[in-house]
C-alpha cells in the first residue's frame, strides 16, 4: 500500500463516480435559463416595489408638506405692535376712557348677536376715549378708538382721535389691580376709568391670516405722571384684565 495511496484513491473514486446522464448539459442549461428568468422576475418585482415605495414616500411627504406650504402662503402670522396717543373728550369737565371686552361665545340667538344672526358671537376688545353723540343723543361711530374682534380685518384704530406716539408704554400690569379673567362662563367687562386729557396706549396684536388671535393692551395717561390706567391680556377665549383702582364698572 505504501506509495500506492493515490492509485488506490483513484480506484475508489472511479467506483464512486456514477454514469453520466445523457442530458446533463441540456438539463443544466435549462436550469440556468429558469434561474435567469427567475432572477429577472425578482429584479422586476424589486424595481416595481421600489417604484411603488418611492411613490408612496413622495405622496406622504406631499401630504405632510402641504399644510406647511398652505399655512406659509395663505395663513400668514403677523404682529402689530404700536403705540398711539389719543385725545380724551371731556364730559362735563371730566375725562374718562371706557374699556370693554368679552370672549367668544359659541352660540347667541339673533336678537342678542350684533351680527343679527344666530350663531357664534365674536370676542371683542374696545377702548373708547371719545364718545360722540348726535343731536338725538345717540352715539355716533366710531364707537371706539381702538378695537378688534376675532374676525378677519377687524383691528381698528381711530386715526381721527389718535396719533402714533413715540412713547414707550410697558405691556405690564404694574401699579394696577387684577380684576380677574373673563371667559365664556364669566361674562364680560365694561369699565370706565378716569384719565388725563390725553391717554397713550400700546397695543400688540398677533394676527393669523388677518384675524386677531391674541393681544396685549396697556393704557396710561399721556401726561407727566404717566399713571397706568389699564392692562388687558386678550385672547378670544379668555381675557385677563388689570385696572386702576378708581375704575368703575359701567351699568
Amino acid at each position: 500500500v505504501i506509495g500506492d495511496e493515490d492509485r488506490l484513491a483513484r480506484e475508489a473514486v472511479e467506483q464512486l463516480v456514477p454514469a453520466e446522464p445523457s442530458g446533463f448539459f441540456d438539463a443544466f442549461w435549462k436550469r440556468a435559463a429558469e434561474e435567469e428568468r427567475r432572477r429577472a422576475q425578482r429584479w422586476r418585482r424589486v424595481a416595481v416595489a421600489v417604484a411603488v415605495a418611492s411613490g408612496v414616500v413622495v405622496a406622504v411627504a406631499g401630504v405632510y408638506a402641504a399644510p406647511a406650504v398652505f399655512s406659509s402662503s395663505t395663513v400668514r402670522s403677523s404682529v402689530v405692535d404700536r403705540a398711539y396717543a389719543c385725545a380724551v373728550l371731556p364730559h362735563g369737565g371730566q375725562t374718562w376712557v371706557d374699556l370693554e371686552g368679552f370672549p367668544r361665545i359659541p352660540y347667541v340667538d339673533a336678537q342678542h348677536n350684533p351680527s343679527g344672526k344666530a350663531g357664534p358671537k365674536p370676542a371683542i376688545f374696545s377702548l373708547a376715549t371719545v364718545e360722540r353723540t348726535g343731536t338725538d343723543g345717540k352715539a355716533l361711530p366710531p364707537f371706539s378708538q381702538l378695537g378688534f374682534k376675532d374676525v378677519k380685518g377687524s383691528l381698528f384704530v381711530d386715526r381721527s382721535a389718535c396719533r402714533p406716539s413715540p412713547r414707550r408704554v410697558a405691556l405690564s400690569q404694574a401699579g394696577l389691580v387684577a380684576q380677574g379673567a373673563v371667559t365664556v362662563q364669566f361674562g364680560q367687562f365694561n369699565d370706565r376709568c378716569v384719565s388725563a386729557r390725553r391717554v397713550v396706549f400700546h397695543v400688540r396684536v398677533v394676527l393669523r391670516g388677518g384675524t386677531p388671535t391674541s393681544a396685549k393692551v396697556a393704557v396710561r395717561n399721556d401726561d407727566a405722571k404717566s399713571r397706568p390706567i389699564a392692562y388687558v391680556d386678550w385672547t378670544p377665549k379668555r381675557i385677563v384684565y388689570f385696572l386702576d383702582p378708581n375704575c368703575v364698572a359701567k351699568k
Partner: protein
Amino acid sequence: LAAYIYGVGADVVYAAERFRSDGSQRALFGPPTERARFERMLDRHHRRLRRLVAGLIADRDRVDDVLQEAYLKAFRGLPGAFANDAHEATWLYRIVYRCCLDELRRRRRRRESPAAEVVVAAVSADAQPRLELEDAFRALAPDDRAVLLLVGVVGLDYETAAAILHVPRGTLAWRLSGARARFREVLS
C-alpha cells in the same frame, strides 16, 4: 462541427435558441460568447470535476445535482477573463469544492449518511475488495479526501490545490502526507 459551435457559430446557436418557439430556451443568457466560453471551460474540466465531487460527497445520487448547482454559480459569476489556465482552474475548482462542502454540511444537518451499507449487503462476494476500498476512502475525513482528490486523483499541482483549499503550500503538503497515512492505515 465543434469548432463551428464554439466559435463564431455560437452566436448563431444562441440566437436560434432565443427564438425557439417552445420558449424554454429563450432565457436571457447574457452575451452569447459567455455561454460558449463557459462550455469550453467545462469541456476542459468537467470529467475531473465530476470525480472531485463524487469523491468528496461520496454519494452517487447527489453528484449531478451538486455539479449543476456549482456550474450555475460559476456561470452566474463568470469573470470576463482569466489571467491564465491555473487561475481559471483555481476559480472553477474552488466553486465546486465549496458547493461540495455545502452539501456535506446540509447532510450533517439532516443527519443522513450515504447508504453504503445497503449497497454492500446487495452485492456479490467477489466485489468485496472494491467495496472495502470504497469504504476506506469514505472513512476518511472530508479534508483528507479533498487533498487526496485534488493532488492524487485530479492531478493538480501543489500551488493550484493549495489555492483551491485556501491554505499555504506547506500546509497542503502536510495535509496530503497525513491524509495518505490515514488512508494507508484504514486500508491496512
